[in-house]
C-alpha cells in the first residue's frame, strides 16, 4: 500500500481553507481601517486651509470645481477653487451656488444630506449610475455637474429658461418630462423645490470626490467625428 500523503487528507484541506479564509478576512478588515479614514468627509476648515480630501467637505459647493489631467497621477482629478502650480486644487476661486458663495458648514451639510436622502428616496440608482454603480438606462451622474449640456454653451439652460447651471438642473429635476431631450425620458418623481436644490448640491459635491480618474476624459471631447 502506498504511503498516506497529506495532499489527499481532508483535514489538511479543511485547515488550509480555514487559514486562507481567516487571513483574507483579516487583510480586508485591516485595509478597511486604512480606507475608511481616507474617505471620511472633510469639512470647511480643510477647504479654508487648503487640505485636499478624497471626499471634500460640503462647503465645496461654494467653490468652482473642474476636472483636470494630473500628470503626476496619470489621470484626471477634481480641482477645487482653481489650480495651483502643482496642478492640484488651489481652493481660491469661488463660484456662486443658488446666488451665494458663503454657505456655512451647517447649511451646506443640510443641503447635501437632503440631496443624498433624495437620491435614495427617488431611486435614482435604478436608472442612472452614481460613481459608475447602478443601472444603465440613463447617463452616469458621477461628474454630471460638469456636463457641457448644463453649461452656458449647452441646451439645458435655455430650455428650462434659467440662467445658471444649478437653477436649470433644479428646474429639470422637478418637471423632467416637461423638458424631453430624447425619446427615453426621465419620469416625474414628485421632487420638491427643496429636494431638487439638495440633489443639485449632492451632484456638485459628488463631482469633487477623487474617483481616481473615472470617468476618463469627461466631457473633454465635444462632438466626435461620426459619433453615431
Amino acid at each position, binding site marked *: 500500500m502506498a504511503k498516506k500523503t497529506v495532499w489527499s487528507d481532508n483535514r489538511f484541506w479543511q485547515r488550509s481553507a480555514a487559514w486562507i479564509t481567516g487571513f483574507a478576512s483579516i487583510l480586508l478588515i485591516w485595509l478597511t481601517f486604512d480606507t475608511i479614514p481616507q474617505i*471620511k468627509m472633510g469639512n470647511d476648515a480643510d477647504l479654508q486651509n487648503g487640505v485636499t480630501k478624497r471626499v471634500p467637505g460640503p462647503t465645496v459647493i461654494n467653490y468652482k470645481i473642474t476636472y483636470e489631467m494630473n500628470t503626476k497621477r496619470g489621470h484626471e482629478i477634481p480641482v477645487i477653487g482653481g489650480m495651483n502650480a502643482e496642478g492640484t486644487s488651489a481652493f481660491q476661486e469661488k463660484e456662486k451656488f443658488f446666488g451665494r458663495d458663503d454657505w456655512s458648514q451647517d447649511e451646506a451639510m443640510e443641503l447635501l444630506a437632503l440631496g443624498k436622502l433624495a437620491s435614495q428616496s427617488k431611486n435614482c440608482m435604478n436608472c442612472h449610475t452614481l460613481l459608475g454603480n447602478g443601472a444603465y438606462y440613463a447617463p452616469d451622474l458621477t461628474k454630471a455637474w460638469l456636463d457641457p449640456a448644463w453649461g452656458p454653451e449647452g441646451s439645458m439652460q435655455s430650455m428650462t429658461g434659467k440662467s445658471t447651471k444649478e437653477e436649470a438642473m433644479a428646474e429639470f429635476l422637478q418637471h423632467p418630462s416637461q423638458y424631453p431631450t430624447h425619446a427615453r425620458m426621465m419620469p416625474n418623481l414628485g421632487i420638491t423645490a427643496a429636494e431638487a436644490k439638495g440633489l443639485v448640491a449632492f451632484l456638485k459635491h459628488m463631482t469633487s470626490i477623487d474617483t481616481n480618474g473615472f470617468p476618463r476624459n469627461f466631457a473633454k471631447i465635444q462632438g466626435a467625428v461620426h459619433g453615431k
Partner: protein
Amino acid sequence: MANNYLTTESKKLATWYFTFAAIIFGAQLVFGLVAAFQYVMPGFLFEIVDFSVARMIHINALVVWMVFAMMGSVYWLLPDETGIETVGIGLGKLLFWVFAAAIVIVVLVYLLVQVGPADQTTIWFINEGREYLEAPRWADIGIVVVVLGFVYNLYATGMKGNRSGIVTVLMADMLAFAGIYLAGMGYTDNISIDQYWWWWVIHLWVEATWEVFVGSIAAYGLITMIGAHRKVVEMWLWIEVAMLFGSGILGIGHHYFWIGTPEYWWEIGALFSALEPLPLVAMFIHVLYDWGKQQGAQEAQGKEVSVIANKPAFTWFVLQALGNFLGAGVWGFFHTFPQVNLYTHGTQFTSAHGHLAFFGAYATILIGMFYIAVQGKHGIKVMHATKKSIWATSMIFGGVLGMTAALTMSGYVQVLVERAQMGASWSGYFDSQASVWFAQGMDWRLIMGIVTFLGFVILVTDLLSIGKATHHER
C-alpha cells in the same frame, strides 16, 4: 399533498421554499421583460411602471428567489447529510410565512407607492434606493431575523446529527452570509462610505459566500445523483472553499477602483479578482471528471447504463459548472482590470456579465434542486428527461446566452462611442444609445429574453408534470 413520498418534515418544508422561489423567479422574468421592452419602446408604461421600478423588482426578485431556493436546498439536504430530522421545523415553517408575507408587502409597495419624500420614513417603509438592497429598513430587520432563525436550525441540526463536511461548510458559510448583510443596513450622507459597505454585502455574497454555497450543493448533487465518492468530493469542496475565499474576499477590491477609495485598491482588486476564475475552472473540471470517473467505473463492470439518477437535474448541475465558469469567470475577467474597467464600468458590459453570472452560477443549480425535489416527492429511483425538460433547458440556457451576447455587443458600442470617443458625457451617452449597433443589441436582448421566458413557462409545466411520467424507474 397526494402521493407524497417524502418522509421527513424538512424535505416537505423544502418544497414550500422551492415553490415560492419558482413564483418569484417568474416575477423576476416578467419585470425583466418590461425593462427590456422599455429599452426598445421608451414610452412603454412611462410614469406608470417606470424602468426604475421594473428594474428594481427585476433584481430584487432575483435575489429573493435565490435566497428562498437556497434555504429550500439546505432543508432538502439536511436529513440526507445529518441522518436526522431537521431541528426546529416549526420555526422553519413560521419563518417561511413571515418571509413570504414580507416579500409580497415589499413588492406591492414598490409597485404602488414606488418613491417617497426625501426623509427617513421613505428609507424605513418604501425603499432604500440602493441597487439590490432596495428593501426598506423594516424588511432588512425582518430578513436578518429570518436568516438568523434559519442559521439556528442549520446549526442545531448539524450539531445534533452527523456533521458531514458539506454540512460543516454550509454552517460556516451561512453564518457569514447572514452576518455580512448587516454591513449594508446603515445610512450615511457620504456616498463613498455608503458604497464601500454596500459592496461588502453584494460582493461578499455573490462572489464569496454564494459561490461556496453552490460548491456545497454541487458536492451534494454529485454524491446523490452519480454516486461520487464522498471523501473525494469533500476534499474538492475544501480546496474550492480555500480558492473561492482566498480570491473572492480581497477580490472585492475591483469594486473599489472608482468610488473615492485610495488607488492601492487597483493592485489588490486586479490581483485577487484575476484569481477568481481559477476555482470556477476547477469546479467545472471537477464535475466533469467525477461524472466520467463514475461512468467509466460502471462500464468497466460491464454495465452499459448511465450512472445519473436524475437526468434533468444533473443536466442543470453540469450547466451550472459551465455557466459559472463562463458568466462569472470569463465575462468577469473581461473587465476586471482597472485599465479596462475605467472604460467598461457602468456600461452594458457589466449588465452582460451580471446576467450570465447570476444565471450561470446560481439559477442553474437551483433549478437542478427543483428537479431533485420533484424526484424525491414522487419516489422516483431514476428520473429521465421529458421533451419538455429538454426544451425548457435549451430555451432558458440558450436565451440567457443570447441575451449575454446581445448585451456584450451593445456594451462594446457603448464603451467605444460613449466612453472612448465622447468622454462619457450626457450627449456621449445618448449618442451611444442611438447607435444602430447598440439598438440592435437591445432588440436581440428582448427577443432572447422572450425565449428565456417561454422556456421558463415550459420549465414550470415540466416541474408540475414530470413526476407523473411513466418512463422513470421507480
